[in-house]
């Protein structure tokens, strides 16, 4: 039987996959994509709970999360280009300029 619970479990699995990618990968662009995946899993939870409650407010939140993701993509990728111009690399182990 397909209930909102199935969607929430799928959302939890996708969120954990995204967290795993953030923790173990060293390429900053892939870490960025994993963050996008975590945002998307939260969106899925919002939409499924919105359907369960019969309330449209959760989907408005999804809209705002998408806006934040777009802004984050613009700024984050600009940061990555600026860092690549300095260091010729996008690996997180080279991000040690502010390390004491």
């Amino acid at each position, binding site marked *: *039987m397909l209930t909102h619970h199935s969607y929430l479990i799928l959302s939890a699995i996708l969120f954990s996959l995204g967290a795993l990618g953030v*923790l173990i*990968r*060293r390429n900053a662009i892939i870490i960025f994509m994993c963050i*996008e995946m975590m945002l998307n899993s939260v969106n899925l939870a919002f939409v499924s709970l919105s359907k369960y409650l*019969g*309330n*449209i407010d959760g989907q408005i939140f999804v809209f705002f999360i998408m806006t934040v993701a777009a802004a984050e993509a613009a700024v984050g990728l600009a940061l990555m280009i600026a860092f690549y111009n300095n260091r010729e690399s996008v690996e997180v182990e080279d991000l040690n300029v502010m390390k004491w």
Partner: protein
Amino acid sequence: MDIQTLFFAVVAAVAILSGILVITCRNPINSALSLVMTFFCLATFYVMLDAPFMAAIQVIVYAGAIMVLIIFVIMLLNVRVESGKKYTHGVLIGSIMAVLLLFEAFYFLNRSSLTGARGMIDANVVQNVGHVELIGRAMYTDFLLPFEITSILLLVAIIGAVILAKKKI
């Protein structure tokens, strides 16, 4: 098992498999394409959840705009395929943390009950009134102030991206 559950299982399996591919692929382009696949699966779920406008936005904004931006940056930076060590040293600790997070989320889902104000929007209302109209009515009345603040957020993001990418301001 009815047809809807079977369809959910197939699409969920594809979503999880492509999610695993995102974090295991050696080439960033392959990861990006797997992420597009995950986004399409999520759009399918939005259609199943009576939210067709959200599915359209998911495909247009995420799979269209954001992923094109990411792939463009990958090609612009000419990121080489990582040779040899592609993971950080903390693979074991990272995996343990992620599995702990997963069990925590499962425990939370199984032991909690859902509360909240019940609305009256179901599949029939979405069919008759239209999803875009429902979203628009909520967004331009109850959520007008957050909507306006969003425009400021986007303006700040545009200015920040231009300033960061410039060599000399």
